[in-house]
């Protein structure tokens, strides 16, 4: 079965990002397909490569990047939510005249249409956090 995943909460807030990650891992282990993980609202903060959590804590951002590399996941960050919160890739940084970008490997910035499409293409859309 194909799953679409929506993450509305940032890392280290409550547990939504952790729950979403564990759900995705379990779904993949059972042979399901993850059509897309869409990060919206504060959830876009899951996609900044500049986080430096304590070494004995889980690294939420790195964990998503690694899972994406391993399973070719499509991790999409909402562009409007990202711009408000200072999350950008190189192209966005240039377009907005910023001196740096901070998007983590495996994530890409795109529009809300990607969430709608995931809702249409996937058999189930599962929402985490908010």
């Amino acid at each position, binding site marked *: *079965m194909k*799953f679409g995943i929506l993450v*509305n909460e940032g890392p280290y807030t*409550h*547990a*939504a990002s952790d*729950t979403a990650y*564990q*759900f995705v*891992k*379990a*779904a993949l*282990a*059972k042979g*399901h397909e993850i059509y897309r993980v869409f990060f919206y609202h504060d959830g876009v903060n899951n996609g900044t490569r500049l986080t430096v959590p304590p070494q004995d804590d889980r690294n939420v951002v790195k964990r998503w990047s690694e899972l994406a590399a391993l399973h070719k996941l499509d991790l999409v960050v909402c562009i409007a939510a990202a711009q408000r919160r200072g999350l950008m890739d190189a192209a966005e940084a240039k377009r907005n005249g910023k001196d740096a970008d901070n998007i983590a490997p495996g994530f890409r910035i795109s529009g809300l249409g990607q969430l709608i499409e995931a809702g249409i293409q996937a*058999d*189930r*859309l*599962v*929402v*985490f*956090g*908010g």
Partner: protein
Amino acid sequence: MLHTVNKSPFEDRTFETCLKFAQEGSTILLIEDGVYAAAKDTAVAMQVQHALKRVAIFALRPDIDARGMQNRVMDGVRLVDFEGFVDLVTAHRAVQSWF
């Protein structure tokens, strides 16, 4: 329909709202702080017992364990791990997340 609730019933009204909307025969999965609704002898325990007559209620085991509630889950609430969570999602036509 599968409903998920991720907030404690003692800090938020999402669980109560979910119970009001959940139709007979549907399933509720308690996750994160939502698992507090599964505890025995609390202010919402009667409400949960009553709801169990018309809906199935599950709680996510890792979240129960993380809160030290292993021996406090009321009868009738079933525990699932993440694999079980995935199975509940595939077994229902749609998922409504209450948060």
